[in-house]
């Protein structure tokens, strides 16, 4: 037994009932802390606010109250009302104020309570912030981050106006970067990168994942934007997924390992710009591809990823590409119907079995 193994942190499952080693991103021997996705985001905010005094937070109820999902808890007490600013219920003014502050040299991190409400601020996000650097010939930049919880899951029962997964709204706008982390490790490293990026970054947090736990290095680290992450290596089939769907993909891979099917999982943790090379390379390696994304199928991420596979790996495909997506439906309130809308682990397992047949 080496000293490294003695020092190893005992792994807890990300959620009760999950295998503890489902996603491990910190190698043994590296000092690490176990924390939730929500805590990882808070730690990223705290570290960046300490590092750079231009970084400030702005949003509804993010101060004393600590945010609707508790992400900014304790930050008001630590940094005060100047740097953790509460606003009225007006998404348009939050992003407008943030965009103005960013133009003036600050690095605002805005919170909109739910991505579903971003429609109210769409002009500021897509027509102003995304375009200003281009419209001014590079004389201005808008280095802001817009944090928004999105998505849902069976049993949440928050209905059609509070549950959507909207990454494609923003991924279709040149000038915006769109990030969708799936783990505490990714959430922290990517948020720090987003804050340091000179372009507007839409940072989407999955509501279901806030309570997911995982190891995060004790030391500071920053992850690159615009790259996919290989969450699991395999040789028979590639599963391309993002956000909460990564967990279904990883569970499906575990289940199918018993059937001697070796699954590779590519996490599209930056939705835009899309890392086409990693998707293409994995598809060429395995020749079989399953795409898993939470937004509804029509004009959703899987259509884009699938086309990347066709462009980069057509001659290597051994089976038609199969996709697993949310239904083209407003999210129902009733728990029993809501279950039918979200893709789950079983759907991913069946899709992999289909491409392997």
């Amino acid at each position, binding site marked *: 037994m080496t000293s490294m193994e003695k020092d190893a942190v005992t792994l807890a499952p990300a959620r009760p009932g999950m295998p503890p080693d489902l996603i491990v991103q910190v190698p043994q021997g590296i000092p690490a802390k176990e924390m939730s996705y929500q805590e990882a985001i808070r730690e990223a905010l705290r570290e960046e606010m300490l590092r750079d005094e231009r970084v400030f937070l702005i949003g509804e109820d993010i101060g004393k109250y600590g945010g609707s999902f508790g992400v900014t808890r304790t930050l008001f007490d630590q940094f005060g009302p100047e740097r953790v600013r509460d606003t009225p219920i007006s998404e348009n003014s939050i992003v407008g104020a943030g965009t103005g502050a960013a133009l003036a040299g600050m690095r605002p991190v805005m919170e909109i309570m739910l991505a579903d409400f971003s429609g109210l601020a769409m002009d500021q996000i897509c027509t102003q912030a995304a375009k200003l650097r281009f419209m001014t010939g590079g004389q201005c930049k808008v280095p802001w981050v817009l944090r928004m919880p999105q998505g849902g899951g069976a049993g949440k029962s928050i209905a059609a106006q509070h549950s959507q997964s909207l990454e494609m709204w923003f991924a279709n706008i040149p000038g915006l970067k769109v990030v969708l982390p799936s783990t505490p490790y990714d959430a922290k490293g990517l948020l720090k990168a987003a804050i340091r990026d000179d372009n507007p970054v839409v940072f989407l947090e999955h509501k279901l994942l806030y309570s997911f736990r995982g190891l995060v290095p004790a030391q500071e680290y920053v992850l690159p934007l615009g790259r996919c992450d290989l969450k699991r290596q395999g040789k028979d089939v590639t599963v391309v997924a993002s956000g909460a769907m990564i967990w279904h993909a990883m569970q499906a891979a575990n289940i199918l390992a018993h059937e001697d099917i070796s699954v590779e999982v590519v996490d599209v943790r930056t939705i835009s710009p899309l890392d086409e090379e990693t998707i293409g390379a994995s598809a060429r390696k395995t*020749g079989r591809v399953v795409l898993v994304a939470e937004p509804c199928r029509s004009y959703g991420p899987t259509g884009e990823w699938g086309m990347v596979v066709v462009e980069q790996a*057509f*001659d*290597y*495909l*051994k*089976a038609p590409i199969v996709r697993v997506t949310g239904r083209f439906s407003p999210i129902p309130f009733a728990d029993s119907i809501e279950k039918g809308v979200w893709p789950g682990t079983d759907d991913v397992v069946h899709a992999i079995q289909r491409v392997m047949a």
Partner: protein
Amino acid sequence: MPLEVFVHKMTDHMESARIIRWLAREGEQVEQHQAIIEVETDKAVAELESPASGILKGIRPGAVEGAQVPVGETLAFIAKPDEQVPALPPLPSVSREAAVEAGGTQSAAAATQAQVVTRQTRATPAVRRIARELGINIDLVTGTGPDGKTSEEDVRSFAAAKGDTLAGTTTAATSPEPVEWMDLSTVQRLTGERMVQSIQTAPQFALAISADMTNALQLREAMIDQIAKETGGRLSITALLVKIVATALKNQPRANASFEAGRVKLHKRVNVGVAIGADAGLIVPVIKETDQKSLVQIARELQVFREKARQMRFSADDLSGGTFTVSNLGMYGIDQFNAIVNPPQSAILAVGRVIKTPVALADDTVTPRPMMNLTLTVDHRAMDGVQGAKFLAEIKERLEKPDLLRELGKA
């Protein structure tokens, strides 16, 4: 009354053509002689003209780009705007192999009938890539998967079986050499098939003669300005030779013949084909009624053919009806060569370059003369050595004798 649009038989061997693209759309107004379909025949790319002015209607199901369509099958109609046209049944698809094989056999029609293939190969892109890498035509592999789907294993065992029958390929399989596989163009493939057929079926022998080109070159110099004025090009030795060959063919009917079905068919018309090498392969456009044409006309036609060869865009007519072939490699510095008879023609003339050669004259003095080697390859079933010799001798005489050459200049 609607008129039918169909692919004509453009060459003797042609049984089908592949549609490259429709140049007019369903419901479009077209004029008579307007090109409406571009097709690839066994020898070239050709345009099909509309038989009349009217509306293109009722394009047949299956008559799509890439489809191999049999000669004579109705593909669409040209009709008046208010005229109804009958709905055509879907076109039977002919596989490329069936078309090629049919082109190369005597009982071509029967072969095509027997080899109409309707099966479409089902295989994943990965399996298709493996087939490509192994140099295998995937359409020839029998699929053993569900619904006849072709698997990687099917392709590999097909390749292995093929490798067993070819000496040397097994070693190639175990230690792969850095090689590149090239697909043949239709023209190259057909040329190969026809040459194999020629060598395997026709007993061939070659006769060689060498002609003193002193006077011919003088005539060429004398005419060069006139020809340049009328054709915009330089009078080539090929043009001169084609004209002389045509006259000789008229006088030596056995050379202007073909061996078909065990008999010799004497052609009343003299249609000299001229072999032209192009990037896509060897092509033999035909100068119709060559003996009736002046040197200027022949020079002009040759010029047009060379232009067309650059893009392999010949009309059906350009390539059909040849009764004899001239192949000149002199411009590539070849002294002399033997050509293979272009079946069913009875002979082919291979022409080398003009080269200054020491020649002993009647008075035993030796002097350099511009000489040209002519080699006649003959199908012995159609012609014997004496007939071949007489034909070659006449060509030589017409190239050398000043009075005969003058006749040429006048014509």
